[in-house]
């Protein structure tokens, strides 16, 4: 591993292209054939918990060399640059077979609002996250509040210098091992809908926090259920103003719907390459020729769309409801590549125990979340109908 020196850091911060070239060199095997990244290259972890830990070590390794600090402000552990630098990092990591570290999926959703609405919290939390020392869970959904997020009931009551949080969150990605939960909670009356919500950071190790891992159908603990039993949280953990949580959430969603899409496209393109290598010579694959072409097209469209959105966000533009178009492309690509892998492997996917079949099965189940998380496919279509096409209301 090499480290970024000060002169190079200035060059990379000014030019995402120069940063991309340098990363490509850094992340590939060395000329003498040795590989500082061997531990992570096309690594498969048997459990979600081991995956998180392995990804945390990769982040620590990258941070030590300075490689994952671009795109973040200097006050928060960064070396300058913008959103495009982060997109470049994920693209190069995925292309090098190192994957996109799972903790960064949530990091990319939650750090833009932290930086924008709570710079002090960002300065405290981000450097640790970039070093892989901690990662976070997003506490939005609840048992009675899925697509209808504004009906959530987890309460935070102000008491002196603290908020007292009580209630429950569900479907928290990375939840089983997350160090903190960034939660949307009700600070207004039960009927206040989106006007009475606030966003707050709750540390996992506070008294009254209980985490129950939730296994998805693949058997992996990809999700968690979080219980808050009168948890006292310092009031300075609020992100934005009290009762202004909806605006923070809307700000956050444009990042969630674009960077997540880009990260997903980068990983899927590498997995598509794997699928071709694994199966191009399998008997019967010829019948699926057109499907391979369609999946490739889905992936390139997803890249084109999310890259455009990331460039616009980096330039300070507001994306708003148009982000639904990215989300629809994401869902189509994720579903299509995993359905293709399933159909190519056939009986082996359904019943076989080869590592490749096992891997695709696990990812197939996870891919089903693409049209659900971050606003379901149906919600995206309704947002486009209401706010982009301006159709008369239902």
């Amino acid at each position, binding site marked *: 591993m090499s480290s970024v020196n000060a002169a190079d850091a200035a060059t990379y911060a000014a030019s995402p292209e120069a940063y991309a070239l340098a990363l490509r060199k850094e992340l590939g095997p060395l000329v003498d054939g040795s590989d500082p990244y061997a531990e992570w290259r096309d690594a498969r972890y048997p459990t979600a918990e081991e995956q998180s830990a392995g990804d945390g070590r990769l982040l620590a390794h990258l941070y030590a060399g300075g490689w994952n600090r671009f795109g973040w402000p200097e006050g928060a552990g960064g070396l300058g640059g913008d959103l495009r630098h982060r997109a470049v990092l994920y693209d190069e990591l995925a292309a090098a077979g190192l994957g996109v570290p799972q903790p960064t999926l949530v990091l990319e959703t939650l750090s833009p609002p932290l930086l924008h609405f709570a710079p002090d919290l960002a300065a405290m939390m981000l450097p640790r996250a970039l070093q892989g020392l901690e990662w976070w869970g997003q506490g939005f959904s609840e048992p009675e509040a899925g697509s209808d997020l504004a009906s959530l009931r987890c309460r935070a009551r102000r008491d002196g210098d603290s908020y007292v949080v009580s209630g429950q969150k569900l479907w928290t990605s990375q939840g089983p091992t997350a160090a903190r939960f960034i939660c949307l909670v009700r600070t207004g009356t039960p009927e206040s809908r989106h006007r009475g919500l606030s966003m707050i950071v709750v540390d996992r190790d506070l008294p009254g926090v209980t985490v129950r891992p939730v296994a998805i159908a693949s058997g992996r603990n990809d999700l968690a259920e979080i219980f808050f039993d009168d948890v006292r949280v310092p009031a300075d953990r609020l992100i934005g103003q009290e009762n202004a949580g909806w605006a923070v959430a809307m700000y956050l969603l444009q990042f969630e719907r674009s960077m997540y899409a880009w990260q997903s496209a980068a990983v899927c393109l590498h997995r*598509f390459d794997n699928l071709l290598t694994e199966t191009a010579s399998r008997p019967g694959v010829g019948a699926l*020729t*057109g499907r391979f072409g369609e999946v*490739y097209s889905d992936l390139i469209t997803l*890249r084109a769309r999310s890259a455009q959105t990331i460039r616009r966000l980096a330039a300070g533009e507001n994306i708003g409801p148009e982000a639904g*178009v990215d989300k*629809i492309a994401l869902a189509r690509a994720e579903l299509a590549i995993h359905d293709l892998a399933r159909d190519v492997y056939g009986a082996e996917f359904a019943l076989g125990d080869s590592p490749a079949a096992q891997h695709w099965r696990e990812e197939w189940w996870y891919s089903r979340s693409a049209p659900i998380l971050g606003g379901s496919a149906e919600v995206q279509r309704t947002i*486009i109908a209401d706010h982009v*096409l301006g159709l008369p209301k239902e």
Partner: protein
Amino acid sequence: MTALDDETITTVRSSLAELFAKDPDTVIDALDDLGWSDIVAADSVTATVLLFEEQGRALASTRLLDSVVMKALAPLGLPDTTNVAYDSITLGPITSDTVLLLSEDRVSTVPADALAGRVHDATGFDRSGPWRRLDLAARETTLLSPEADLLARTVADARLALAAEIVGVCEAAVQLTVAHTSLRQQYGRPLATFQAVRHGLAESYAATEHARVTVTAALVAARDESDCEAITTFARLAKHRAGAAQAIVMRNAVQLHGAMGLTLESDVHRYVSRAGVLDILLGSHVALAHRLGEDLLAGGSPRALVAI
């Protein structure tokens, strides 16, 4: 990326819309008066997008596509008004002395006077279209041998222009369907208040935007990229995406117009049939998906194509 500001783009767009609405035959000459070469020089990608999207929106038949091809093939020294046949389909009647026949891997010519009785009005799907079909065997044509890259780039340019035109047709069809479903009442309220209808429209809109962004990204690559193989692949992908989008948009347009969408007196069929022929020219989305898949399965690693 663009040297044209939003205001200029809006002005150019409405000037083009006027031109196409008036008399499509005069568009090519009128572009000179509009100072089109300056717009192309400022930003060739946006110029192509504007020109062909507006042609698509207007359902206009011109020979702009022929001029894209003849410009790309300028090194061959043929007159720039030469009629082009795209896998045997021409954009209109033959008016040049020589006809150029263009396909994915072959370019050839035939003298127009050898075509007596071999040019047929296309009376198929797009009945009011100006299309002609040539009934001709490859051995009856004179094979040209431009450098391989020149042919590949020409096909890519033509595919991207076609794809941009399909985006324009789709955009107009979505607008038509939004207008219809917002006005037409059933059960005492506009159709567009029903969730199934709204979601169909949102899907059509997203499909159109997916095509638009893919076409734009491919045009940027065709302008900036030196690797001809990457340009070929990207142009195939973009035309695939546009062709797939028109399939979604037109299915929804017909469905959401109800029985009216099937009639000759409604405009819907004009969008459906024009988009259908544009999809076929130089490879339908189905054929292109197959071709892309063949190359991948033959050992071609999927290129990332898009960078940040």
